[in-house]
Structures are given as C-alpha cells and as structure tokens.
C-alpha cells in the first residue's frame, strides 16, 4: 500500500459521517482547463506522491544515511458563500488523516485556502519523513 492509498482510505473513513463530501481516487488533473476539484465541488482529490531524498548523516566511509520526505497534496473546493456548518470538523478530520501512515519518524499536515469567485479551495499538504 502506498502512502497515497493509505491516506485516501483514512480520509474516506474520517469523512464517512459527512454525506455531502466524497473522496475520489482520481488524480486532480485538469479537465477542459479546469482542475477536477474546482469542477466537482465537495469532492476531495489527492495528488500523486512527491518524494525528496536528502542526506541525513555523512560518514567517512560514505555509508550515508538518507532521509526520505514524501509529500502529498489534497484539494477540496466548496461554495465560499454557503460553507458547511461543520467545515472546521471536516478540515480537522482531513488534517489528522495523516496519522494512518505509520513507520515514519515525523509527519505533519497543514492547509491553506484560496478564494476564486464564489469557490473556496482548501489545499492540504501532508509530509511524511522516513529514514
């Protein structure tokens, strides 16, 4: 199981009590120049994994220890004028979904918002660090 599929599974579980929001396993590609998450409001899309490998420790015999950071980005767009009453709960559930990924030395998640016309897009970023 990849971190992306684990995260999608956990987000699905966390949002199971919210009938107005669903999660797609599709990548958030553009359709007709519009990202799917802007086209399909109230659907969570998780992007492909981005992986960065950095040197954590250098040793004299070049037996280097590396640190791998896997970044996942998720998107949720909804009506900016009529947001869900429990949008804060939805956001919190999306943020803590990172806890499903184990065997990492560190994980964190945050989000930012952007409003275009009457649509607000929540962009979540998840980072998973392994050594």
């Amino acid at each position, binding site marked *: 199981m990849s971190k992306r599929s684990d995260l999608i599974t956990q987000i699905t579980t966390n949002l199971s009590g919210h009938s107005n929001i669903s999660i797609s396993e599709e990548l958030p590609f553009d359709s007709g120049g519009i990202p799917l998450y802007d086209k399909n409001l109230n659907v969570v899309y998780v992007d492909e994994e981005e992986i960065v490998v950095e040197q*954590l*420790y*250098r*040793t*004299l*015999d*070049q*037996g280097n*220890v590396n*640190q791998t950071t896997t970044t996942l980005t998720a998107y949720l767009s909804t009506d900016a004028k009529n947001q869900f009453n429990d949008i804060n709960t939805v956001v919190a559930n999306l943020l803590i979904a990172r806890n499903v990924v184990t065997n990492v*030395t560190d994980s964190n998640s945050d989000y930012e918002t952007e409003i275009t016309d009457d649509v607000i897009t929540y962009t979540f970023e998840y980072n998973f660090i392994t*050594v």
Partner: protein
Amino acid sequence: MAVINVTSGDQAILTLGNVAPDSDGIISGGLQIPFVQDITVNATPGTVRYSTLDSTASSAFTTVNENSISLNVLVDDEVMFGNATATGNSVEINGLLPTSIAKTEVYFSVAVTGTGTTGDINISGQGFIGGLAPTASIDSAVWLSPMEIIVNGELTKTAES
C-alpha cells in the same frame, strides 16, 4: 606536500583486531568500523610546569605520552553488539560493547591516507575500547555513539612499502 582529502570513502578508516598490525601497520582480517562521522588521533605528551625566581615565564618538562583515539559513529548493530556468524577476529564476533565490557585489549590501525598504495600512512597501536555511550532520540532517528580507544603504550606511524 598536499592536504589529505578524506571525501573518497577509503581514508581515515579505523580497523580493530586481536592480532598485531603487520610491518605496514595493517591488521590482517581486521574489522573496519563503518559509519564513522569523525575521528581524532590524540598524541599528547604529559608535561609538568614549574616556575623559577629568575624567569618571567614558566618552564616545563615532559613525562609520559598519553595517547588515545576518539571518534563518533552511527551504531551498526552487528559491529556494536557482535556477529556470531562472523569468521573474522574476536572483536568482530563479540562486538564493540561486549569487548569494552570485558576490558579486552585490542589492536587498532587508523588508515590516514587509505591503504594499498606505497607510502600510505597508518597509525597503529593497542589499547582498550571505552567511552561508548549509544544514544537514541526521535530527532536523530538512528543510534549515535562516541567511542574512545585508550591507548596502552605508544602510537606507531608506518608507511606502506
């Protein structure tokens, strides 16, 4: 004359064993310590200072040398705790920590400029493993440990022939 570049991965290598180094300073079948972050060869003459009424500065005379090798390593489980299936020397089989606990004297060699080339410099001797303090924390992600070899006797510098 040139600085010694230690970025190639085959220099500044510490080897331990239970047999004395050969005439080139190399320990046959020795255990090369992996994941060394830094290593320091301490060759320190003991000194005693004294003052006299006819001098504005203190004087000194030497006593015996106090030599040691100190280093920091990332802990490799087999090297630190032993590898029972190894066929090498007793240090490799028993591991650094048990060898230190047993106070077993070991031979060591530090390949200053690497090995295998005429003129390569080795510093060798014998002593006791000490100073092991394996430390783990969630921030470092791996076990780290300092280590010291308390040298019993003189350091010997040899050049490969």
